[in-house]
């Protein structure tokens, strides 16, 4: 029993964090928000700087062009990406899509090329439910429409559809789809509906084979969302702590009022106890343990609650300025609201935990 990261893991995380803080400042986010309405997708310079570190292939075996590391090496990096509200799909590309493709037979070349070309990737077509996953893609005259896909402008899209009663998993190129952007509060996650045509050529797996991959993709999505939420939570609390320390009212810093302290401390405590659950789930994933569903649901429910509380408390401690577009809080807050509900909110995950625990005790 040793529940901590290795020095190498911490050093890598820290190196990526440095790159992130250089490339993804609040000023960059402000610029991005303006830009997003015009040309969507990513900041190529930033993405290349990050992907150039090898991060996207971090959990991909070395012979496929990856770094051959594990989700334990990636989880803290996802947290750092959350902390700077990185608009690009780092965790989704590296942790969700490439993390899964590494184990899909026949994908070797495609994956190696994608890593090499510094591609972005995303996954969509399934909603998280308490007891099972529901495919959200609809099919009409051979054209599939997948709603609410995050990072909808990614280079590669891993999409789920049900055809003749069987689940199918498809890998589709950006060029092959039509993207219909969905207005949403958090612009940086770029939600959209993808219209695409499932073909023999895009088919990756079908039937129970596809179900197994989809299951893993969903668990990975929920887990990496949880990791990003930890980072967002930390970022909101840090920003708020510094604001209430500066800001004076009635002649003293707002942060010296007990009510402000207690609100912020409460959120900080939730973060403190969410973190180990996220790391444990990453361990479970990395080691192929059978408790993945339970552990991911623990991670996501704790991280979502912590981030929701941090968002509420931060807004409250900021007062009116927290409502403004010009101040930085809203980037993290909107992202936290979105990710908290995505891939199963806290209650849906708790409902799943209840089923699993009752089953295991009886």
């Amino acid at each position, binding site marked *: 029993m040793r529940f901590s990261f290795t020095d190498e893991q911490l050093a890598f995380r820290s190196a990526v964090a440095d790159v992130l803080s250089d490339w993804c400042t609040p000023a960059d986010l402000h610029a991005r928000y303006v830009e997003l309405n015009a040309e969507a997708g990513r900041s190529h310079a930033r993405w290349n700087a990050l992907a150039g570190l090898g991060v996207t292939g971090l959990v991909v075996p070395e012979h496929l062009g990856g770094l051959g590391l594990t989700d334990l090496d990636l989880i803290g990096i996802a947290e750092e990406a959350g902390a700077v509200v990185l608009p690009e799909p780092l965790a989704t590309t590296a942790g969700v899509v490439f993390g899964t493709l590494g184990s899909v037979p026949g994908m070797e070349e495609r994956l190696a090329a994608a890593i090499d070309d510094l591609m972005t990737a995303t996954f969509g077509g399934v*909603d998280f*439910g*308490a*007891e*099972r996953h*529901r495919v959200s893609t609809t099919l009409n005259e051979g054209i599939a429409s997948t709603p*609410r896909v995050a990072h909808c402008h990614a280079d590669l899209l891993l999409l789920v559809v049900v055809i003749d009663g069987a689940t199918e998993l498809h890998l589709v190129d950006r060029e092959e789809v039509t993207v219909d952007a*969905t*207005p*949403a*509060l*958090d612009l940086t996650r770029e*939600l959209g509906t993808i219209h695409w045509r499932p073909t023999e050529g895009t088919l990756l797996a079908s039937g129970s084979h596809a179900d197994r991959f989809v299951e893993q993709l969903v668990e990975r999505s929920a887990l990496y969302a949880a990791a990003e939420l930890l980072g967002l939570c930390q970022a909101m609390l840090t920003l708020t702590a510094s604001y209430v320390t500066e800001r*004076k*009212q*009635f002649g003293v810093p707002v942060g010296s*009022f007990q*009510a*402000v302290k207690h609100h912020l401390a409460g959120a900080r405590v939730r973060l403190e106890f969410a973190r180990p659950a996220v790391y444990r789930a990453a361990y479970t994933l990395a080691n192929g343990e059978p408790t993945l569903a339970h552990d991911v649901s623990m991670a996501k429910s704790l991280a979502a609650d912590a981030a929701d509380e941090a968002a*509420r408390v931060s*807004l*409250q401690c900021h*007062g*009116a300025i927290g*409502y*403004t*577009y*010009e101040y930085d809080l*809203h980037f993290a*807050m*909107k992202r936290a*609201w*979105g990710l908290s*509900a*995505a*891939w199963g*909110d806290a*209650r*849906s995950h*708790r*409902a799943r935990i*209840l089923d699993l625990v009752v089953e295991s005790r009886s």
Partner: protein
Amino acid sequence: MDLTFSPDQEAFRMEARTWLQANVPSPGSLRSLDTAEGFEDHRAFERTLFEAQWSVVSWPKAFGGREVGIMEWLIFEEEYYRAGGPRRVSQNGIFLLAPTLFEFGTDAQQSRYLPAMASGEEIWCQGWSEPDAGSDLASIRSRATKTEGGWLLTGQKTWCSRGAFAHRCFGIFRTDPSAERHRGLTYFLIDMATPGVTVRPIAQLDGETGFAEVFFDDVFVSDEDVLGGIGEGWKVAMATAGSERGISLRSPARYTEAAGKLIDLLAAHSQEVGALGLDPRGAIADDVVKAYVDAEAYKLHTYMTATKVREGHKVGAEASATKIFWSETDVNLHQAALRLLGPDAELMVPNGHGGLDLSDWLDGYLFALSGPIYAGTNEIQRNVVAERMLGLPRA
């Protein structure tokens, strides 16, 4: 105790309902209040309300009202929300400034400002908060210096709701620079078109501009536009603050109407739940009912308060309790809705869940979140409740 309405009151209700059914614009047909075009759309509706004498039912007839009592006002509000009436662009004027004008204004001021306010011709914004003051009004730094026939105003006001597009502004400035805290403040009525006024709209979370910063650089205001006397600003402002927190702004219909829609949303959700496999135990249901119960409790409390007011009692520290309660209810109500909507909650598209646009719930949530903050943060209201309703010592 009699919890029924009189035949006259019922007739008044039916008259309002009939008129509103015929005249309230269909949902979505007015553009957003926080844009220049939407502002004008909403002003046009205010004019329609005014012409049919529904814009300020409780005011004297001379100023465009019907001179009805507080119960009738509550009835009108119930019907207004029931009909899905749009947000009132004239709100700062008719709900915040008007009570102060009725109490402190000269006859000339009343005749000059009230009818134009009631008709939507002149929209008011409030100029209270300053960058370093926030909820602490007594630390105001903007100043006014005496000049021939009036005053020159200098300084900066922020979080002026409706400030981006308003015609007039009410606010307090320090007229006695040697005085501190509550003293030496004066309440002014300002024309936003006066030279020296600069407006900088503040973009909100959703990118729209309901708020503004207003800069004053030797802005002339004539002596006639002092409200309530030189150096009396604090007293006059506290009267307005009472209105903002008190009964006149927050009619319960707003919450009971939203709570009803929330119940509908839950019912629609419960039918889908089997198919979706989402949260089958419906833990959210309890949150939904809690929000409904609180909205109804707020309504009952308001009727009780209205009875007191009608019988000549003053509303004291209860106004702080009321402010805490409605603002928390509003947040809880919208939070329950967003939980029900799950991953759809952040979408800003109409898609007809439970008969309501998604974006309405999200908009409502963002708006509700400001409730605990504006009109004196709930933190401060809790101090008031603790000190004045429970007798706890001041810090």
